[in-house]
C-alpha cells in the first residue's frame, strides 16, 4: 500500500533517515521499532508531509505522494497521530472530533451567513458520529470537557478517535503508548485491533513497549541508524543478530574495566 524507496532526510550533516526502503502491506498492523534516534519519527514526518525529504520517493497505492502537504495526504486517506498528543486544547473533546471531516459546508464563510439550515443538519449528523466514536473509545463521559483538561492517555485516545471520524485508509500512530497507563494502553490496543478488523484500516505503529507490539503487530520492522534493519514477526525480530546488536544489545566490551582495585 505504502512503498518507501531509498528515502533520505538530512539535517545539516546529520542523516536522520539514511536510505530507508520499506513496504507497508494493505490491512496490516505494522510495528516500527528501533533505538532512540534510529529515525523512526523522522521517517514518519517525511511520509506524513511534515518534513520534505532530502531524496527518495514515497508512493501510496502506486501514486507518488512524496512531499505532499499533510492536509492533502489527509484527503487521500493518510492520517496520523502524534508522539506528544496534539489536541486542540481550548475545544471540547466532542468539538475535537467534529472538526475533523473535510468539506463541511459550514467551513465556507458564505454558508455561515446564508446556509444556516444546511449547517444545522450537518452538525447534527457530525455530533451523532462524534458521540458514537467517543462511545467506541469508552470515553463518552469526557465529551464536554475541554481537551486541554483531560489526562494524557485520554488525549491519545482522542487522537485515535479523530482518525475514526473519516474513512481513513492508513493511520500512522507515533508512540501511542508513551505516558499511558497499562489499562488504557490495552483499551487503545483493542480499539486499533477492532478498527483494523471492522473498518479495514491499515496501521503503522511506532512503539517501545514490546508487549504492546507483540499483542498487535505483524509484521514488525526494526530500524537503526536511519535504515531498515530487519523485518518479520516479533519472534523473528527478537532472534535477529543485527537487531540484538543495535537495539537489544550484546553487552559491553570493556567489562574488564569494571574490576575495581
Amino acid at each position, binding site marked *: 500500500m505504502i512503498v518507501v524507496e531509498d528515502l533520505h532526510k538530512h539535517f545539516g550533516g*546529520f542523516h536522520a533517515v539514511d536510505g530507508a526502503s520499506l513496504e507497508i502491506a494493505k490491512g496490516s498492523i505494522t510495528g516500527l521499532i528501533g*533505538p*532512540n*534516534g534510529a529515525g523512526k519519527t523522522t521517517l514518519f514526518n517525511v511520509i506524513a508531509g511534515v518534513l520534505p525529504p532530502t531524496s527518495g520517493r514515497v508512493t501510496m497505492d502506486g501514486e507518488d505522494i512524496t512531499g505532499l502537504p499533510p492536509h492533502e495526504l489527509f484527503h487521500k486517506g493518510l492520517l496520523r497521530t502524534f508522539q506528544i498528543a496534539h489536541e486542540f486544547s481550548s475545544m471540547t473533546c466532542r468539538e475535537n472530533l467534529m472538526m475533523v471531516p473535510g468539506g463541511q459546508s459550514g467551513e465556507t464563510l458564505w454558508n455561515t451567513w446564508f446556509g444556516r439550515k444546511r449547517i444545522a443538519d450537518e452538525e447534527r449528523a457530525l455530533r451523532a458520529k462524534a458521540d458514537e466514536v467517543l462511545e467506541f473509545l469508552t470515553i463518552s463521559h469526557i465529551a464536554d470537557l475541554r481537551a486541554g483538561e483531560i*489526562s494524557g492517555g485520554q488525549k491519545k485516545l482522542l487522537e485515535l478517535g479523530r482518525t475514526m471520524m473519516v474513512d481513513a485508509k492508513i493511520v500512522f500512530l507515533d*508512540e501511542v*503508548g*508513551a*505516558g*499511558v*497507563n*497499562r489499562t488504557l494502553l490495552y483499551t487503545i490496543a483493542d480499539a486499533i485491533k477492532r478498527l483494523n478488523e471492522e473498518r479495514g484500516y491499515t496501521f503503522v505503529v511506532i512503539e*517501545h*513497549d*514490546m*508487549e504492546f507490539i507483540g499483542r498487535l503487530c505483524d509484521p514488525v520492522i526494526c530500524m537503526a*541508524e536511519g535504515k531498515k534493519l530487519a523485518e518479520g514477526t516479533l519472534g523473528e525480530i*527478537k532472534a535477529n543478530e543485527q537487531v540484538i*546488536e*543495535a537495539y*537489544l*544489545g550484546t*553487552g*559491553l*566490551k*570493556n*567489562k574488564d*574495566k*569494571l574490576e*575495581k582495585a
Partner: protein
Amino acid sequence: MSEPFLIGDCMTGGYGKGPDILHDCTIAVNPGEIAVIVGPNGAGKSTAMKATFGMLNVRSGSVRLDGEDITTLSPQDRVIKGMGFVPQTSNIFTSMTVEENLEMGAFIRTDDISDTMEQVYTLFPILRDKRNQPAGELSGGQRQQVAVGRALMTKPKVLMLDEPTAGVSPIVMDELFDRIIEVSRTGLPILMVEQNAKQALEIADKGYVLVQGRNAYTGTGQELLADPEVRKSFLGG
C-alpha cells in the same frame, strides 16, 4: 545500613500541577558507584532523576545529599551544593567553542579552573584537539563528551546523566560507557537514566527498574540481568 551519599527517598510528585508521575520512588547512589535507572518508556525514569535534581514538585518524600535535606532547593542551588547534571538533549552551548563550554561549566567557581580543565582533557583527549571548535560542529558522541566535561567542571560531588547514550551508535555508546566508568573510578558517584537497559546494567553497581513511577526491581546490575522476571519484561527475553 548507613545513609547513602545522595538519596531521593520515597518521592511522589509530578510536573507543575499535573498528575503524579512518581509514586513512592526511591533512588540512591554512593561514592564510587554507578547507579542506573531503567524501565519502559513512560515509566518515569527521567522524571525520577529530575525529581532528585529539583526540577519538579516532590509532594512527599525527601531528597538528601550527604546527609543534608535539599528537598526544597532549586536546581541552581543544588548545582552550588555540588550536584552536576547532564540533560538528555540540548546539553551543550552549540555556538560556543569546546573550551568556552567548559569555562561556562565552571561559572560558579572563583578559583583557578585550569587543573580541572586539564583533567577533563585527559579524560576526553578528543576535546583537547577540538578545543577551539564550536561545540555544535562536533559529532554526537563528542557532544556528549563535552556535556559530561561541562558538568565535571563544577567539581561536582555527584554526577547525574540523563540518557547519555540516546541517539548514538552502539560503538560510540560503548566508548561513552567506558569513559563513565573511568569517571566513576575517581570516586565520583554517578546516577544515570538509560534507555539501553542491558548495556547499562552491565556497568551498574546498582540498578533501579521503574514501572509506572514505582520501584519495580532493585539490585546490583548483575542481579537484575540475571533476574528472569526483569529479563522477560524489559530486556526482550
